[in-house]
């Protein structure tokens, strides 16, 4: 699932202040990369903040952390 779709699901589930904070550089396939998401459950009396950072960060450039396929 693309990150923006996952963020939409987080909002639908009731979270606010959702964000795809950054990519991790770890790739499990040619199609997928690790990403870090944050979200909060509304506190009592708190207003929703759906306009918090929902924009996606730039993909992580290739680096040593990403192994060749078949590696560990």
């Amino acid at each position, binding site marked *: *699932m*693309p*990150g923006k779709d*996952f963020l939409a*699901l*987080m909002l*639908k*589930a*009731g*979270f606010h202040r959702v964000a*795809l*904070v950054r990519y*991790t*550089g*770890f*790739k*499990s*396939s*040619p*199609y*997928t*990369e*690790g*990403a*870090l*998401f*944050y*979200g*909060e*459950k*509304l*506190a*009592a009396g*708190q207003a929703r903040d759906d306009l918090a950072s929902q924009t996606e960060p730039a*993909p992580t450039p290739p680096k040593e*952390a*990403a*192994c*060749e*396929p*078949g*590696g*560990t």
Partner: protein
Amino acid sequence: MSEEMTEPEICQVRQGIRQKYDRVAAAGAGGCFQYPTGKAGMDLQGYPPEVIGDFPPEVLATFCGVGNPFSLGPLNPGEAVLDIGCGAGVDSLVAGHLVGAGGRVVGLDVTPAMIERARAHQARLGLANVTFQVGEAEALPFPDHDFDAVISNGVFNLTLNKEKALKETHRVLKPGGRLLLADMVLMAALPPDRAGRVENWFQ
């Protein structure tokens, strides 16, 4: 994609996930993933050395997370934390250190072999505030408003009903609770053939 999958494909995904993580539970994460695992992976993701420095090598060797959820914000002393898809328990044990003796951490995983391994790691480290149990992200066995924070690392992408898993996560969080999540996301279109799409689910 789950709506598009046939029942045999869903079974294939579940069986593939179970077999893969049974192998990890038995032999560690090395060679099972296309990214760095074990201590090397934790170091690259910036896990706190003052915490994992106390962990035995055989515990660190089972780490197969895709990122560092602890980098998203602090876990505070005394807090209650749920680790969804805890695997062999490395992140749960890190959380146990961070919340201290006055806090509690529950690690949840669908693979019984992983829970056995996690309990062995917990016993080895003697962290009495960390427990483990078998369970699914889509049906969390906890009451409403039970946790201050939920962490998860490389798990939601494996669930067949992500919306349900997220709603369950939201349900068990206390008001004001935080979700600190590392997960795999799609960066490019999946292969057009259905077999490739199914296999990619548990790579």
